[in-house]
């Protein structure tokens, strides 16, 4: 395999004496093949060019979760990322994870991330909802989310976390789903009730960035979708998140289309709507006002029938993780 010269641009970060982070970009030149991992390159820079370069790493095989960092604009595990895949014109930009405080270079303070995980009661609890037997298929939901190694990649790339430090984040929610879907968990309902609180599951903006960025195929957003399904089924429908989501099936049956005119009223209530009047007038200026009575799709009776059939005979359509036997 041919050896190329890569320019590695690293955002060096240092805490100043008054606690601020001083940052600047520094370039290193490294010879490597396309399949050299970013971790090997960082090791080489630290070992042979600049011992002050600081980053975490441990297992080298994508299972310990230490080396997640921004590489080429996205958060990735340095140990499984090939330089050839992320280099643009033989240049790679590397920086610390986002949305979290930095200690030095790529080493972030992992405390706040884990504090969020702690919030979801991250252990099996006893209670009345434990299943008697753990069946062979019991973990086809658990299996996806137990792949999580808590590397923080999803949180670092989360578009909601970027604007909302209060948001619990994808990793914690995926972990929550791991317990909600475990047949041995005794307090599933209590968990779902807590997860319906503000800044928890309903604050996910559904951008699926976590699904793309996760190095272990945990698909956190899919877990969040399933949490919401279970929560709605339990009737935890207070708050704008579930109210908004529940508007859809009603409208589809009524007219075939979303009634965007009444949607706000139903989601945030009268007070919320009044608060939003300014925004409404702003939209109105450009004629962006939905029709109170949207035109109806043809064949709506079919939808009512489908809905009725499914309410009477619910179908399990959840995606399931494949059973994995060790290699």
């Amino acid at each position, binding site marked *: 395999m041919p050896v190329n010269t890569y320019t590695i641009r690293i955002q060096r970060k240092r805490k100043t004496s008054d606690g601020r982070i001083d940052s600047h970009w520094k370039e290193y030149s490294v010879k490597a093949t396309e399949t050299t991992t970013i971790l090997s390159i960082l090791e080489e820079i630290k*070992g042979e060019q600049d*011992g002050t370069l600081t980053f975490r790493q*441990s297992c080298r095989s994508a299972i*310990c979760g*230490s080396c997640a960092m921004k590489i080429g604009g996205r958060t990735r595990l340095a140990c499984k990322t090939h330089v050839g895949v992320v280099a643009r014109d033989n240049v790679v930009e590397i920086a610390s994870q986002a949305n979290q405080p930095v200690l*030095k270079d790529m080493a972030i303070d992992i405390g706040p991330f884990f504090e969020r995980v702690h919030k979801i009661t991250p252990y099996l609890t006893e209670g009345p909802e434990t299943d008697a037997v753990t069946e062979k298929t019991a973990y086809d939901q658990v299996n996806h989310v*137990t792949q999580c190694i808590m590397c923080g990649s999803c949180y670092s790339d989360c578009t909601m976390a970027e604007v909302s430090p209060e948001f619990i984040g994808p990793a914690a929610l995926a972990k929550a789903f791991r317990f909600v879907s475990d047949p041995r968990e005794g307090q599933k309902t209590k968990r779902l009730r807590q997860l319906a609180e503000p800044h928890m599951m309903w604050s996910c903006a559904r951008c699926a960035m976590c699904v793309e960025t996760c190095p272990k195929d945990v698909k956190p957003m899919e877990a969040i979708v399933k949490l919401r399904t279970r929560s709605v089924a339990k009737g935890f429908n207070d708050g704008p998140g579930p109210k908004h989501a529940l508007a859809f099936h009603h409208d589809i049956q009524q007219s075939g289309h979303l009634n965007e005119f009444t949607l706000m009223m139903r989601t945030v209530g009268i007070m919320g709507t009044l608060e939003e009047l300014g925004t409404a007038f702003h939209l109105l200026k450009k004629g962006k006002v939905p029709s109170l009575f949207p035109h109806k799709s043809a064949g709506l009776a079919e939808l009512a029938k489908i809905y009725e059939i499914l309410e009477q005979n619910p179908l399990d359509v959840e995606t399931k993780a494949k059973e994995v*036997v060790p*290699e």
Partner: protein
Amino acid sequence: MKSHDLIIVGAGLAGMRAALEGVKAGIDVAIVTKIHPLRSHSCAAQGGVNGAIDPRDSRESHSYDTVKGGDYIGDEDAIELMCHEAPESILEMDRMGTPFSRVEGGLIAQRAFGGASFNRTCYAADRTGQVMLHTLWEQLVKADVRVYEECSMLRLVTDAEKHVAGIVVYDIKTGEVFPLRGKAVLMATGGYGRVFLSNTNATTNTGDGMALALRAGAPLADMEFVQFHPTGLLSSGILVTEGARGEGGYLINVHGERFMSKYAPNKLELASRDVVSRAEQTEILEGRGKNGAVFLDLRHLGKEKILERLPQIRQLAIDLEGVDAIHDPLPIRPTAHYSMGGIRTNMYGASPLQGLFSAGEAACVSVHGANRLGGNSLLDTIVFGKITGKHCCDWLKGKVLRNFAASEVDEVKSRIADLKRRPDQGVRPLALLQRTAGGMNQYFGVFRTPEIMQEGLAKLPAIRADYEKMHLDDKSDEFNIDLLRAFELGNLIDLSECIMRGAVARQESRGAHARTDFPDRDDENWRKHTLSQWDPGKQEVVLSYEAVRTVGKAEYAPKVRTY
């Protein structure tokens, strides 16, 4: 001065399992770990955990397999204890929340593993270690155990009566050095795979607990027994699991010859780890390798089977080696994998040094003898984590804090200052590590030949001298990994010396220790444990020996080990 009843160093499976016993006993227990608990290397164990939970299996059979697998140098009482406790320890993990894979009806699924006479390896998909680690961490959170995260132990401190008094801690995040007093210290710091340049281990597996226990006066046992895994990827040493050969993969040399027919005509690629590793090394030494590797060839299995049965191995090789097993053979070589040696303890995890305990890979109880069986390492951690933790809590009753001399901290601080002050004399930490660990691969690898070993041992003084000249780029306090690695390298050098001296002295071949000049096992003279101790006067490691603990069962009597 901060203090705890029990300080556990290391937050892998053994350390965390021990901590839970401390919680149960109501003592003040704290964990000190240089990485977050979930980063611990226990997570890398894919295979599974052994236990006779099936009514058709027996604990006796498990014990027998383990005694034989360890080539008759494991302590039989400890082995029986481990195998006896195995089922309950596994079921306990299950109750805590580990999602072990199931069979119809809800029982835990089990599968076959090397050296076992029954399918007794419980597994959780292909990430048993990871989910067990996460389970114990969850329990730690539940019990609100005090964890000193990203804090490295730089010294084990004893009082004038050679009784453990605590440790000196270096907070990696801030650079702060502080004393931590404890009535007892439990080392659960894992193995020393990094002693070898080519290894399957995490970069953090530097055997800190063993090395500092050695310097504090505790004996280490059987350090020369290092398990080499036959299929480490050439460039990184990362493991390709045995499953690749289980599915029918061939081992070929540079000429494309399936060489195992020469070394193990019956079992071929599926012979035990030590046999396969020696065969590969012979091919490489005799010039039939390429760049120091032979090849694992999966191509004949076909794309479909590889994608269906070995997707993770394929992905790993693509990610780390840039080779797609569908199209090309994978370059592999024997790679240091597991440390059978460790801090010498009795069957309850107590070291002869008063107040020092150890469990897991850091300890030598000894249950693995000269060769560990697959699926017994995870078992070791949860069984002896629990037993040692419990025993330690019993032992603690009535014990008091010992005198912790302030000079201990000052010495560490001045050592740090000295390291930071050193002028650049051209010795960089990475280069010295490569010299030390590369030498271990070269002189103390799969085969050990007297002249070659002597050559390696002769390089030790120069390495020690250069270590004192080593220069650090990073002078800062916060997150100074450069500094941390300097201390770790010191530990690796000490442990290398134990391995070297133990290997030179042991004039036989047993388990993972293969001497070219003594190809056979010698039970009459060498069925005994090697003890390594630091001699402060001589400033070197000295050896002594201790008998294997036997229980007198006829079926445990040494036999020729065939599979």
